[in-house]
């Protein structure tokens, strides 16, 4: 079973803001958590570590995402090189063009990236390919007749067990405990081969990629009125109990 795992190189910390714009270049980066979970599910299916390809779309530094993938067991890596990280619909289009010329059975990716929290990439990729897609996957195993059996998470702890016949796209939910990747494995991965494809600017400028007007990025303005209670734990706790009583919450203290 040939598996492609799509990884996005995202900021690991809250980036700085200048005039309502994100300055993420200087921030520490990582592979997004949901994408890392997708990689782990691929490793569950690929015990022999010879049929998983990792791919990323982005500028030169996003190649580090591929090294992380190789260090975890991916056998091949593809970098679609662009000047900047493209919007999800454009990235999906680029990956779809790559997939269309290869023979993958499954494409796994995170249900949403942790920077834009967009949640569009995997579903847009499936749409481009004309493949079925199942979202919020937390488990996958091989079934009969080359199918896979997946557990898709629903709200409130519910779920669905589904049989999926490849080719298909699976978007993966976070939650899995992620293994530590030794530095030595990462250093070794950096000596691995990465296939490069150039992404032509504006390759996906059509009606399916409408330009939204972004007014700016800012700090959350919800809340902000938190009263911090200082002193020793005993002093802070006593003050808290007094405040709760003042707010008529004494019934909670019965």
């Amino acid at each position, binding site marked *: 079973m040939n598996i492609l795992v799509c990884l996005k190189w995202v900021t690991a910390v809250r980036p700085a803001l200048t005039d309502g714009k994100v300055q993420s270049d200087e921030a520490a980066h990582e592979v997004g958590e949901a994408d890392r979970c997708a990689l782990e599910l691929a490793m569950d299916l690929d015990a022999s570590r010879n049929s998983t390809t990792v791919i990323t779309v982005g500028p030169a530094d996003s190649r580090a995402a591929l090294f992380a993938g190789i260090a975890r067991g991916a056998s091949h890596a593809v970098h679609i090189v662009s000047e900047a990280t493209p919007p999800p619909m454009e990235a999906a289009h680029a990956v779809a063009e790559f997939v269309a010329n290869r023979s993958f059975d499954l494409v796994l990716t995170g249900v949403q990236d942790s920077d834009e929290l967009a949640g569009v990439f995997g579903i847009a990729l499936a749409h481009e390919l004309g493949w079925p897609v199942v979202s919020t996957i937390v488990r996958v195993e091989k079934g009969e007749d080359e199918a896979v059996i997946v557990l898709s998470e629903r*709200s409130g702890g519910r779920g669905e067990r589904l049989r*999926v016949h490849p080719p298909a796209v699976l978007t993966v939910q976070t939650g899995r405990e992620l293994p530590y990747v030794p530095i030595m494995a990462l250093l070794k991965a950096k000596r691995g081969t990465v296939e490069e494809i150039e992404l032509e600017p504006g390759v996906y400028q059509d009606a399916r990629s409408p330009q*939204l007007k972004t007014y700016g*990025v800012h700090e959350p303005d919800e809340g902000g009125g938190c009263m911090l209670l200082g002193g020793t734990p005993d002093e802070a706790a006593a003050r808290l109990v007094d405040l709760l009583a003042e707010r008529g919450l004494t019934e909670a203290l019965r």
Partner: protein
Amino acid sequence: MSGILLISGEEESSILSASLVSAAQRIASEQDWVVTAICRSDEDANRLRHWVDRVVVVDPDPPGYEAHIEPQLVKGVWDRIDPDVVVLPHDHRGIDLGPRLAVSLGIPFLGNCVGWYRQATDLVFTRAVFKGRLRADVGVEPIKAVVALHTGRTTEPIARETPAPVEEVLVECSPEPAIQLLEEIAVEEDGIDITKSDVVVAGGRGIGDRENFRAIEDLAVALGGVAACSRPLVDIGWQPSSRQVGISGKTVDPRLYVACGISGATEHVAGMKDSEVIVVINNDPTASMFKHGTYGIVGDLNDVIPAIIKAVTDSRQSRRTEI
């Protein structure tokens, strides 16, 4: 027809559905739009027709894998009424249905919306980004969009003078033969309904050790409430999913919510932000949970929780003595 095509929340989330309808009413009012609700049952239609301008009950022909069928149903209605935006809740279903619908309609999906405002002629939605640590304001006018909203405290929608008309539509759907439902997994219940308690004490990853959840339970008992948790504790198997607060868990709005060792990810905050009083206990003063708190204590849970339990016990003892 200019307006909103509204998809209400999951069937058990009637509170969220009412909040969402209320939000749609307010957006429509500012934009001079109408609200058309789409639903799947006569029961929902009878509830919604008192709040919106038009109700469409849809049925798939033939039925099939729900996640594949539902976007086709909504698109069928979209094609008939040509609205401006689709509004749906940012819940588990919304984060799947929203993008599916957006890509099939060829319009943007704006998920994680925590608010909106009007800027000149633009309708601007505020999205949570960067793990909820920042907000991005994105204008959609005149572009059409699918918008997933985090619903707020229950706001009863404004009732219409006369119930809206209800239309039944059969939408021809193409099934997805590559996906078969084998089993529906039920909620892992432990007999405690965290949505019914006036006091909820929740622990997160910051509790550090499984055994430390005992302190969360002790504090919950001391405060007369129930113990709950954020998603990471369910993921690592320390707590059942029935105790999870958040988008993928349950939504609570108790009088008192105590968040212990919880960082404040959007996933969790969406499930408890409408609590009347929020107490945040965390040893990381930069934890974004403090932004949502009413009162905060920066400190080690192992020190602070026993101190609160003692203060509660002392307070109770003191009041008994006074009586």
